């Protein structure tokens, strides 16, 4: 295996930070998030699962995507782009998997989402394998693994005294050229995994349960907040609004932004005039899970869940995706 030390990694990250946007796990007031960092020293190497997924760095929670300038009756529209490359370091494999899920819709379905494509193309994903699965994790049930390299450009695995480096893609190979490594004998240890798998059933089974009373039972205690969708590495709903940023005589500057949205929120389906075609909590919760396990795979290919477990541990009323998957499998099996 190719071996490197933490100090060598830090030196490499220092070099990257000087040239491009570097994002990495960082401690923030007792929390761990993927955040922009300026040097290798700011990077957290020992962490569990950052509390928010990495999606915000290719699909920002709030992003100005058009700048519009209106002079009198003349309008110019400019698309917002950056020339800078971006490296997301320390990505957990589930978060990279999550981006692959979003890719299936935002990149692979015509027309591509131009803004997302722009960020995706400028970004290199350097993963750090999880040594074990954390509370709520079930990536192994969703086709992933704590050390799954599939959706990463580079995968690091912690080994005695440092890290094993695996450049997965061409982008990754180019990036690690600047990283000092040496050949070392041996293989990285396999991560610990949970024994109890969560059952994933086919979309046809889901279709038989649309009117089942389990949606009432799981959905009624929902608060209609947005935690599950905002912590989720695959949720991708968005809203688009304008904001006026500058008004002078004869000149108005406007930003068009897109902002994360959540199908769990009360007014998600409220149309102009007030009609809401999904007015109840059970109906909205059902849509969230059908999106992940029925609509998304049918429409775009992959399942809309990677088993990161964030929604499981962060829901204030214990709406547990794994419990729902087990219920659906049990009920589906009875028919």
């Amino acid at each position, binding site marked *: 295996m190719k071996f490197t030390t933490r100090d060598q990694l830090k030196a490499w990250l220092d070099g990257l930070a000087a040239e491009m946007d570097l994002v990495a796990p960082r401690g*923030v*007031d*007792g*929390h761990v998030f993927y955040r922009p960092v300026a040097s290798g020293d700011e990077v957290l190497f020992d962490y569990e699962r950052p*509390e*928010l997924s990495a999606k915000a760095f290719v699909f920002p*929670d*709030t992003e100005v995507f058009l700048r519009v300038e209106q002079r009198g009756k003349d309008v110019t529209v400019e698309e917002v782009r950056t020339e800078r490359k971006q490296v997301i370091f320390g990505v957990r494999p589930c978060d990279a998997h999550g981006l692959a899920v979003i890719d299936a819709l935002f990149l692979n379905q015509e027309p591509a989402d131009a803004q997302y494509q722009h960020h995706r193309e400028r970004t290199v994903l350097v993963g750090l394998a999880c040594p074990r699965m954390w509370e709520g994790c079930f990536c192994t049930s969703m086709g992933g693994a704590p050390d799954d390299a599939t959706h990463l450009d580079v995968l690091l695995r912690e080994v005695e005294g440092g890290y094993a480096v695996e450049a997965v893609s061409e982008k990754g190979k180019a990036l690690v050229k600047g990283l000092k490594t040496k050949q070392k004998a041996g293989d990285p240890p396999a991560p610990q995994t949970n024994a109890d798998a969560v059952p994933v059933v086919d979309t046809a089974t889901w279709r038989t349960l649309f009117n089942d009373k389990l949606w009432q*039972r799981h959905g*009624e*205690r929902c*608060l*209609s*907040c*947005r*935690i599950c969708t*905002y*912590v989720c590495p695959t949720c991708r709903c968005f*809203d688009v*609004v304008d*904001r006026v940023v500058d008004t002078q005589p004869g000149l108005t500057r406007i930003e068009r*932004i897109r*902002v*994360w949205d*959540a199908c769990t*929120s009360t*007014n998600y389906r409220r149309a102009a005039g007030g009609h809401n075609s999904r007015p109840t*909590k059970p109906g909205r919760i059902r849509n969230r899970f059908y999106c992940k396990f029925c609509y998304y795979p049918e429409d775009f290919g992959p399942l809309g869940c990677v088993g990161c477990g964030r929604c*499981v541990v*962060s829901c*204030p*009323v*214990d709406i*547990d995706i794994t*419990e729902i998957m*087990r219920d659906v499998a049990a009920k589906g099996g009875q028919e």
Partner: protein
Amino acid sequence: MSDYEALTQQIREQARQLLSEGRVDCVIGYEVGPRGVTRPAFIYDAADVDRLVWNASCVHNLVTYLHDKKKPQRRGEEPPRVAVVVKPCDSRTINVLLAERQIARERIFAIGMACEGTVGADGEPLARCTRCGDRVPVVYDVLLGEPPNVSPPQDDYPDLARIEAMPPAERLAFWLGEFDRCIRCYACRQVCPGCYCTTCMFERDDGLWVDIGIEVSGKHIFHLGRALHLAGRCVECDECERVCPMGLPLSLLNRRLVREVDATFHYHAGREETLAPILFEFGGSK
């Protein structure tokens, strides 16, 4: 120590009676999910009452769910009658909602629980419980359990004093740092029994006060605005702080105003069943 097992049985028996005698259509209580997490439960059938539990982790303020029960379930019917399990703090929100004409007293059956405090996921008492002196709900139709004979501390706002001692610039930096972590998930608002506007002013399509961007400027206004809207209405159930996934100390904002309303008006939201909303008193339109 409460005998949780005995109280669990009493809640179940109460729920069984209410449902089988047709006195209520639904009992909102607590159950324990497969992961061992205590959570809200809605019981419609006497056959399901054994799902109900009472334990130290019954932290949720279930009164917030009464907003979902204000309308008839089917057109032309009466709104449902609902029994709800309440702790002392929760019970005060019943009074707030009664005073604000959100719920009808005769449609609510309050199963009051003598309370010795609840614990968080870490097993430690919740901060709100360590400063709470209430052991008996202020409104109930039946009281279960013996009020524990302890004299707990009253809230003298020591944590608030620490923030207030900061110079303004430092205090602003503290709050902006906290608000920066906010992801604008609105869990604080959604869990709050006092936040029931059909369209929140912070989520208007026209972005009149603040647009929907998840940025610190908007989050700042949202949290301060929400706290102000709860002035004289907040009962310090602190559910907003408990559900916040980013650990924002929202209680500091709310209790700052609780203290202010206490000092200025000697008003304590929800303490009495007949208490009119403070802004009504204030405006002389009782």
